[in-house]
C-alpha cells in the first residue's frame, strides 16, 4: 500500500446503501497496512492520510459496511 502525497485525508463512514456500481472490498482483500487503517477508522470520527489502496466512494466490508470518503 502506498501513501499518496496529496495531503488529502481519508475517513470511513458507516453505510447501509450499496449501489450496484460501487467497488466493494472485503477486509481480507486488503493489505496489512490498509487493514490497520480500517480497524482504526471504522466506527470512529477520525481520519488518516489517503492511501493508494482505497479510493473515494469505495465500500469496505468489515464488521459493518463502511464507505471511504476522502477530502
Amino acid at each position, binding site marked *: 500500500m502506498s501513501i499518496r502525497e496529496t495531503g488529502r485525508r481519508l475517513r470511513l463512514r458507516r453505510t447501509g446503501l*450499496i449501489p450496484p456500481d*460501487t467497488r*466493494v472490498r472485503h477486509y*481480507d*482483500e486488503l493489505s496489512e497496512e490498509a487493514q490497520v487503517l480500517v480497524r482504526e477508522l471504522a466506527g470512529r470520527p477520525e481520519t488518516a492520510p489517503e492511501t493508494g489502496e482505497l479510493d473515494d466512494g469505495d465500500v469496505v466490508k468489515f*464488521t459493518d459496511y463502511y464507505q471511504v470518503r476522502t477530502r
Partner: protein
Amino acid sequence: MSDSYVIVGDGIAGASAAETLREQAPDAEITVLTDEGESLYNRILIKEYAKGKLPEAPISIHQESWYDEHDVDLRLNTVVVDIDVEGDAVHTHEGETFEYDSLLLAIGGTPQQLPVENADADGIHHFWTFQDARRIKESVEDAENAVIVGAGLLGIDFAAICGAQEVEAKYLMRGDNWWRYALSEEGAEIMHEAMRERGVEPVFDSGVDRFEVDDDGHVEAAVDPNGERYECDFAGVAIGLNFNTELVEATPLELDDGVVVDEFMRTNVDNVFAAGDITTFNDLILGDRAKNGSWGSAKEQGTIAARNMLDYGSEEFRWVSSYSITHFDFPFLSFGHPTLGDDSVEATTAEGEWRRVALKHGKVVGGVLIGDLSPQSAFKQLMREGRDVSDQTEVLMEPGFSVDDLAATTEQ
C-alpha cells in the same frame, strides 16, 4: 513463436496468474479454462449476497471484456477431462485440445456431502460458488426454520445468512463448541452468543444421522445421532472440501491431500504448476507441507506460480495467511495455522475479547483473535521472523501486545 500458457480455473489463483503472465509476458498466448459459467468473481463477498446485504454487480471482479482487453482466451463452461503431461496438452469435455508450454492447475475443491440418508434432497445446500449463493438466497428467503451442519469457518457463514434473513436455525455441532480444533470453550462461547443473538441456536454433541423429506423430496427435518428431530425447510451443510484431484489421478503428478508443489508452486513435472486450494505446498514459515484456502493465499500463490512459470526459481511463496469473520459487531480473525502446533497459549484480554496463539517448537504458527485484532500484524511478524517465544508466551497475551514487548534475547 510465443510461449503458450494454459490455466485451468478462473478463481482468484488462476486469475491472478493470468494477470501476472500478461503483465510480464506481453506476447504470451494465455488460455483460461473454467467449468463455471461466469468469469472471476469475489468469492469472499458471495456470502454477503446470500445474506441480502449486497447486490450482484459489486461481486464481479473480471467482466468478460477484461479477458478480451488483455488478450486472454477465456473459455467458460469448459470442463477439462484429461491432462496429458507427456504430450503437454489438456482435453476438454467437448473434445477440444489445448496444448501448452506451461500449465497451471487452479482447480480448487468441491464441497463434501454428508454421508447420510437424503443428503442430496431439495433444500439442502452447500456453499462454494456464486451459483450456490444465488440458490441459497432464493431458498433461505422462503424458509422459516433451518438446520446448519459444519462447525467451522464455512459453516458459520450459513449461520450468518440465516440470521440476516431472519430464519430461526439450529446449528448442529458434533463437539461441545464451534471450531473446537482452534478455539477453547471460552473463546467459542463469544461466537455462540453472537449466533444466539441472531436467532441461531448452537446444539452441541449433535450432528446429522439422516435427513427426512416430504412427498416432493424436499427436506423437512434433520435427525441427529441422539434421535433428536429438528424441523427445517432449509439446511446448510459445510463440512469441508473434496479437492478436485480426480483430474490428475491418472497422471504422474504427486498427490497428498491435493497437488504437491514446491515453494515455487511447481509440481514434480517441470512445466506443470498449481495454485490455490488444490495445492499441498512447501510452507517455508511452518517448515512443513501445508494447505491453505484463504483468498489472500490463493491470490499470492497464483502470482508466484506465474512468475515461476516464466522464470523458475525467481520467487518463493512465503506467506502468512489470515481469514476474518465479519458477520458480527465484533471482528474475528484466524491467522497462520491455528489448528497445528505442539503448544498454545490463550487469554481473555477484555470483555468480549479473546485470543489464542498456537506454537510449534516455541515459535508462533498461527492463532485466533476475537474482538481485538490489533496484535494481528505483530503475530504475523513473529511468524515470518521465526522467533522463539517459548519463554515469553505470557507476553503474547498482554493487551496491546507488540513485538517490541518481547525481550531482545529471543531474537534469532
